[in-house]
């Protein structure tokens, strides 16, 4: 069974219930980034910590990068869906940023601003 499953999974790669589970098998690359909220105090917080978001002109998040470093597309999409689903008014000024995590010695900014917004803590 072990061998049969392994061979079948190698054939289809991913077709229920067979999979080679290839997630996270690649290299780390030079860095990664993710969309986060930056408060007026400079703290980086998950966007899901706020609601009633109102942004000047929300970009398509997964097309944005910071110092050439992008994020994971589906996570960016989930963030954007959250922001659109939790739109509203009022609250405090928040900067939507792309926070960068570098894994090499290249000097990069820690974050890039994407758009100015207001939001209310949940």
């Amino acid at each position: 069974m072990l061998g049969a499953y392994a061979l079948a999974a190698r054939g289809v790669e991913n077709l229920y219930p067979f999979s080679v589970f290839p997630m996270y098998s690649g290299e780390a690359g030079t860095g990664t980034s993710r969309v986060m909220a930056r408060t007026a105090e400079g703290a980086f917080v998950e966007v899901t910590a706020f609601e009633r978001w109102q942004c000047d002109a929300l970009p398509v998040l997964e097309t944005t990068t910071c110092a050439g470093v992008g994020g994971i597309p589906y996570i960016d999409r989930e963030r954007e869906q959250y922001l659109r689903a939790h739109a509203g008014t009022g609250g405090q000024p928040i900067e939507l940023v792309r926070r960068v995590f570098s894994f090499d010695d290249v000097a990069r900014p820690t974050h890039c601003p994407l758009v100015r917004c207001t939001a209310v803590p949940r």
Partner: protein
Amino acid sequence: MIAASPWDGASRAPLRVVLGALMAFDVLLGAWFVSSLRPSAISHPHAPGWLLALGSNLPALAVIASVGVAASVQFARRAGQIGYALAAICAAGVLVEAQAALLEGPMRFLFFSGAALTGWVAGLVFARFQGLDARRPEQTRRAEALAEQGAVSAVAACYLGAVASKLGSTGVRWVVDGGLQSTIAAQHTWGRSALLDALALAALEHAWLVHGLAGFTLLSQASAVLLPFSRRGRSLSALLLLGFHTGVWLLTPIAFPQAMVLLVAFGFPWPRWFAKSLARSQAQGALPALPDVAPGLPPSAAVLRTVAAFALVVGLAWLPPLRAYTQLQHRRSAGQSEPASPALAPLSEQSRTLLGGLQVGDEIRGFRVTELGESAPGLVVITLEREGQRVVAEIAPRGTSQFSAPVSTARFDLFYRRSSSDPPDDFPLVALDALATWLRERERRP
């Protein structure tokens, strides 16, 4: 051929119930996922229409979920119910594949229960080939011992596939250069717990720590080779894998609860522990842990028939059309088949009206229009550029193309052309989505 199991000497009915419950849970979860999805720019371009049509189709999902849950319950209730097991696998498979086609590839945490149940069925079939029918009470224990081994083997194959994928991609360098650091950075939920934030930060700032975690990942996944072959080895591997899953769950939100339940259920000698506990309270002896599977080789005819059945499944899995479909699960790269690029005719008056006077140089939701025209009457071709990347999109009246559109509006199907020089990311689909949103806004105007 088959080593002893921690469940030897006891009924496997609890394992069957756990498997049935997990399958029912997966079926309901799959139906719930699909109930909120609709075909979009990131849907599989070659998915069958009926599969995409399940998105947000509550009546159809209710029927499939009911069949899947009922079959899971029937499988769990009585031994040897191969038909119900296959029905449950099919129901879960349709839902998982619908989600995969609609969204952006499958959610792998949903695969473990199905893999284990497939292994269970394979074990029952192997037993039947030996003349053992789990439906006969006197043969249930021996037949389900084989089913248990099949299930454990399938779970082991899942983990060994994961470790093989990592080693096949970067070799043992995965420990140093692998994506664990990147995964933690991109997925950790900051602000949920100060302790977990500190752990995640430590892993990101201290290379030795993340290398150690990566090494443990490979070790625990490779230990799955022990799962089918040794009673103590199975418990040891289950412990390592549970530790791995727990660590991943704490450092990221990535959880594989079904796999963890399977490891807990199949990995430890629960019957012996309960029997010991009962023996203490009732002054009775514990169950003897005698192997339920007869030692030595099984009949060669049964082995041959089983190998033939496995070969059939493996052969189907390697069919080129199936592979072509599944290889697009996470790397969607097709809209219309790549046609030649003839010179474009100017927009017709009808298309010009549709696009509201759009001209080369205008912007659509952050994408600059660099080319605009018609490749055939009514078929608008529009080239969009952003940050040095470009995509050629096509707008066709809805339902007039032979291809499944990756995204549609009320009146139009949208496609993109892709060339081999394009980067392997989702840029074309993002551009197509932006174009669709822009078109929908225009369609809503009186």
